[in-house]
């Protein structure tokens, strides 16, 4: 009896530690976003807001075009995800289900090239995009973001493609499907969870990226969320309630995605890492 009690306590304690670690920062900015500037500078600091206000949220929308930032992020992350998933599906299929010479070498080469450090890429990519006149266009971010997630998407989809029985594909081809037709009619639907998982990972990667977004887009209206958020601060002043409100607004979409698709995300992360 006593043993059972302490066992349950340990489990609870473990859960609480992990959850405080993960959620505390978000909870703290949520509380901050409800405070006024005057309450903020009081000493000692208050933990719970005394007179909770939603004013910071209104200001967040008027002080910077955060709606536009959101739209930019959705467009860039959405289109780069679509491009990345399509391209890596084809590559993963070729590398797992076709007899190709030097399969492993090609795979390694693809991964090595796409793992090129972003910061080294930033300098020349900026020049290339400037020459092509693509600075401050969505394409300047969509193309590199598609590459950014190419390795993880290829790995995740390769691991799913491998599990599909080749007989199904053969049957489709006997029924008159072309090889590529079989890929889209048989393999992709069966590997849908893998395709979907890869898509979520690509989306989150693109949504979170900062360095290229900072470099390629210098017009306020083209900023994505991750960069747009930093525009709420003055050179010396940090209006924390306002910044917190903007952060909370920016966090909502990503929270919905990970809450709804959490098992997929975890599966994808570990397939790309552990199996990779």
């Amino acid at each position, binding site marked *: 009896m006593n043993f059972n009690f302490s066992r349950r306590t340990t489990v609870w304690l473990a859960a609480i530690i992990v959850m405080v670690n*993960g959620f505390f*920062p978000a909870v703290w900015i949520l509380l901050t976003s409800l405070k006024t500037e005057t309450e903020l500078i009081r000493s000692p600091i208050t933990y719970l807001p005394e007179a909770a206000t939603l004013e910071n949220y209104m200001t967040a929308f008027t002080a910077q075009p955060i709606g536009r930032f959101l739209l930019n992020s959705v467009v860039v992350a959405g289109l780069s995800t679509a491009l990345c998933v399509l391209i890596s599906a084809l590559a993963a299929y070729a590398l797992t289900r076709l007899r190709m010479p030097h399969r492993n070498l090609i795979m390694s080469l693809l991964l090595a090239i796409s793992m090129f450090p972003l910061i080294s890429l*930033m300098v020349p990519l900026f020049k290339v995009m400037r020459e092509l006149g693509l600075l401050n266009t969505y394409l300047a971010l969509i193309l590199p973001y598609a590459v950014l997630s190419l390795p993880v998407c290829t790995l995740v989809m390769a691991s799913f493609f491998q599990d599909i029985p080749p007989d199904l594909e053969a049957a489709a081809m006997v029924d008159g499907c072309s090889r590529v037709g079989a890929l889209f009619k048989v393999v992709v639907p069966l590997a849908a969870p893998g395709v979907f998982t890869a898509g979520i990972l690509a989306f989150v990667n693109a949504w979170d990226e900062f360095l290229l977004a900072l470099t390629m887009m210098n017009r306020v209206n083209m900023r994505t969320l*991750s960069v747009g958020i930093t525009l709420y601060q003055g050179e010396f002043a940090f209006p924390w309630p306002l910044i917190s409100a903007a952060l909370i607004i920016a966090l909502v979409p990503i929270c919905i995605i990970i809450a709804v698709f959490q098992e997929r995300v975890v599966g994808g992360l570990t397939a790309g890492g552990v199996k990779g």
Partner: protein
Amino acid sequence: MSDAAVPKQKDMSEPMLGALLLLPAVLLLLLVVVYPIGTLFWTSLHSVDNANPQAGEQWVGIANYLRAFDDDRFWHATLQTVIYIVVTVPGALVVGLGLALLANQPFRIQWPVRLSLLLPWALPLVFAGLIFRWFFEYQTGIVNDLLARIGVEPLGWLSDPTLATIAICIAIIWKASSFMALMLLAGLQTIPKSLYEAAEVDGASKWQQFVEITLPMLRPSIFVALIFRTITAIQTFDIPYAMTGGGPGDATETLAMYIHKSTLDFLDFGYGSALAALMFLFSMVATSGYLRYTRRSSGRGAEE
């Protein structure tokens, strides 16, 4: 493996089709990676003469690289980057392993714990940087408030070089450890329960079980997680950018931040490219380690 079951197609050979399917990826990589890398090395051998800017970029050979070796700010930024790597790679591993062990409990409801590991992973780095800057604020931050409660004078976390480095490391470790924990948790869940039961019967203590079973079984996951973390740590940018902007002075500036400043603020493309090329060499070392490991393990997978 699929060879036997697939009927022989007459219209196109498999290697041909494979090459065709790989083409989009190859084209994209050529445009976004290979061509820019080419121009990176080319640009790094050029410079604009400040006395005669009209002449455009002039060939200067390896002058930009030689300049880097004499540049104190470059060495400082490199050292600072190395500090972040040396502190946060093992730091995130230890914290991540701790979180994974804590999360690997028979919870009746799994999702809150899983979500609390996913949230820091999904949070953009720059958001994490901003939030931790807020934690470490001198007058209104919660860290100094908690310290005051145990009688410690408020510390100027973001205005002292050493303290700022510590604060940045804490933020990076918090952000990176959740990804570690997710990977290690997946590794933990593949360890057969029977191993622990057998050890229990043999009278092994919890600590012995951890050292003799858990750690060895987790080795592949730990290795992959460490390589990933190292590759990311080499490129540290967002969190110091958001927390200190590289300050005080240039004290917490990383190599990535210095490259960014050289190129976009000082518009010194030649020098920025030389620094970026050096950075490329550093990270190639880490990447090749990762690839050697994956090739070895995929070879092993094929044997099974």
